């Protein structure tokens, strides 16, 4: 099977995010990048499917800056065979990213049997690249998947829906599966794996090589700013029963005029 995994590099969850000086994006200079945690589930699932189907290959794909390649290196250290990076600014929109990923798959020269990715990236939370890419490739897609089983042609996946219930889908491959937490426990990239990953091929492509042009952009970020600081809460002293009526009146008044919730 030709298995593809789309991964994104996101700021470490402990990073303090601030807008850059001119407000066009976030300040990326001091960010420590990690693989999007949901994509780790996708890499692990790809390796599990590979192990169950002899002769399969796992190729990782990423669109983003070439400066740090943590996510791709980690995926290869975990066991993926090769990687494609489409070099692009970190603020590309979902449509352009999906188109770039499609282009990278086509450049790899193989037809995908299975594409895996995380259900969402934890930085911008757009939740749409898997579906756009599946549409572009005209293949079925299922997201928020927590269970995976099946053969090289047909799979059964379960996805979480409201209220904790599961939907069960029978899917013909090729398909796009977007993974949720719980589908597996991602392995660590072992030290021998890290050493071996150094020798695995990482192909860097430009946006032009995957035919992504500026007019593909559907969303442009106009400005980045921090949310206004939350004003400190108000305390009301209602211990004195004689004054309670007045306090209640004041609270109700503020809920109307200031908080505007009633």
């Amino acid at each position, binding site marked *: 099977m030709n298995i593809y995994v789309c991964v994104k590099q996101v700021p470490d969850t402990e990073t303090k995010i601030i807008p850059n000086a001119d407000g066009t994006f976030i300040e990326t200079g001091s960010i420590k990048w990690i693989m999007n945690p949901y994509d780790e589930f996708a890499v692990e699932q790809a390796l599990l499917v590979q192990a169950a189907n002899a002769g399969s290959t796992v190729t990782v794909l990423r669109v983003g800056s070439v400066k740090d*390649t*943590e996510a791709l*290196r*980690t995926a290869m*250290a975990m066991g993926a065979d090769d990687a494609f990076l489409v070099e692009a600014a970190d603020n590309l929109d979902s449509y352009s990213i999906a188109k770039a990923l499609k282009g990278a798959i086509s450049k790899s020269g193989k037809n995908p049997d299975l594409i895996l990715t995380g259900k969402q990236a934890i930085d911008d939370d757009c939740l749409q690249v898997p579906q756009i890419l599946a549409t572009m490739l005209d293949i079925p897609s299922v997201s928020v998947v927590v269970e995976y089983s099946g053969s090289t042609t047909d799979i059964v996946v379960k996805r979480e829906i409201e209220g904790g219930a599961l939907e069960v889908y029978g899917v013909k491959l090729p398909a796009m599966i977007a993974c949720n937490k719980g589908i597996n426990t991602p392995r*660590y*990239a*072992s*030290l*021998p794996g*890290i*050493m071996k990953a*150094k020798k695995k091929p990482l192909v860097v492509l430009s946006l032009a090589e995957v035919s992504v042009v500026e007019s593909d952009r559907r969303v442009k970020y106009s400005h980045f700013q921090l949310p206004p600081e939350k004003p400190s809460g108000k305390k009301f002293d209602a211990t004195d029963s004689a004054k309670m009526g007045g306090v209640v009146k004041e609270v109700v008044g503020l809920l109307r005029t200031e908080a505007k919730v009633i």
Partner: protein
Amino acid sequence: MDFSYTPEQIEIKDLAMKFAKNEMMPKAQEFDSKAEMPFQILEKAWSLGLVNTCIPTEFGGNGFSAIDSMIITEALAYGCMGMNTAIMANDLALLPIVLGGSLEQKKKFLTPFTEKYKIAAFCLTEPSNGSDAGGIKTSIKEDGDDVIINGNKMWITNAGYADLFVLYGTTDSSLKHKAITAVVIEKGTAGIEIGKKEDKMGHRCSDTRAVTFNNVRVSKSNIIGGLNKGWGIAMKTLDHSRPMVAASAVGGAQCALDHAIKYAKERVQFNVPISQHQAIQFMIADMAMKTEASRLLVHKAAWLLDNQLSNTQLASYAKAFAADSCMQIATDAVQVFGGYGYSKEYPVEKIMRDAKLIQLYEGTSQIQRLVIAKEIFTR
């Protein structure tokens, strides 16, 4: 001159820190109070390549540089200094074979450690000889193709579970350093008596015992580097192991510092977080400064090794400075936590107990100063 890690070193550090935070830290308190070896965690660390970092690639190892090993050790000690001691003791025992063993010995003794998680113990200290290592009394007597070993060893890490013992003895105790001999003894050899587990202040999950050798017979082919050649091997081993122990002090110090910073931002006194009080700020600044200075000494001591340059003096700088700093930093972390710091409910009291051992083992802080002074005045 370059202070940056390579991309591989960043990945090595990330993996080791991830392991320390996800696997070791959540269990550190539990194994400390139970005083039990955390075999599952140790075996998992081994399966990821975090154990036995000193074994070269020819014998199945990962071929790490000394600096790589320091990065790994610092991270593992960040997770738990006690667990790291169990891991580091393997390197300490295997290093004499790596540095002084023959090709056959390396193949025979090192390779099995890369195929399965195995435990090794380094036996140098005796009940009456610690700092005065040249005065050890355990005797090694020739007998045909074999040698016979008799004596008592004390404070032996990993002793209760060791698959392999690397022992230093003497062929003639009156000759002091000139008669020290290193020998490999495999588990199950007749005459090895393992003592009861020591009830220690810190590093409680690592297994420390006395070991008695009663007429233990091994082939001469187990002698590392030849009869009476042990002292040189021991000294070379220390050049590698002391920076490593210092690296573990850096890990412990960084962990104590991180806890203290986090707590100082949360704890409110006089209506502001205590991180806004200059008294706390100065303590934290000193702790951060000493942690980084220790790390730089460790890296330089390792860098010298990687460049085949003499590092004895730097190794002792690193060991003494990092160990003493770690003790100070852990004590100050408890101070920042106030009364809570003294409770086992919070992590810093364990680090304070663990830190003390780093000033003692692998050459006390005083012995390091002796080594440094000797290097200064005799060279």
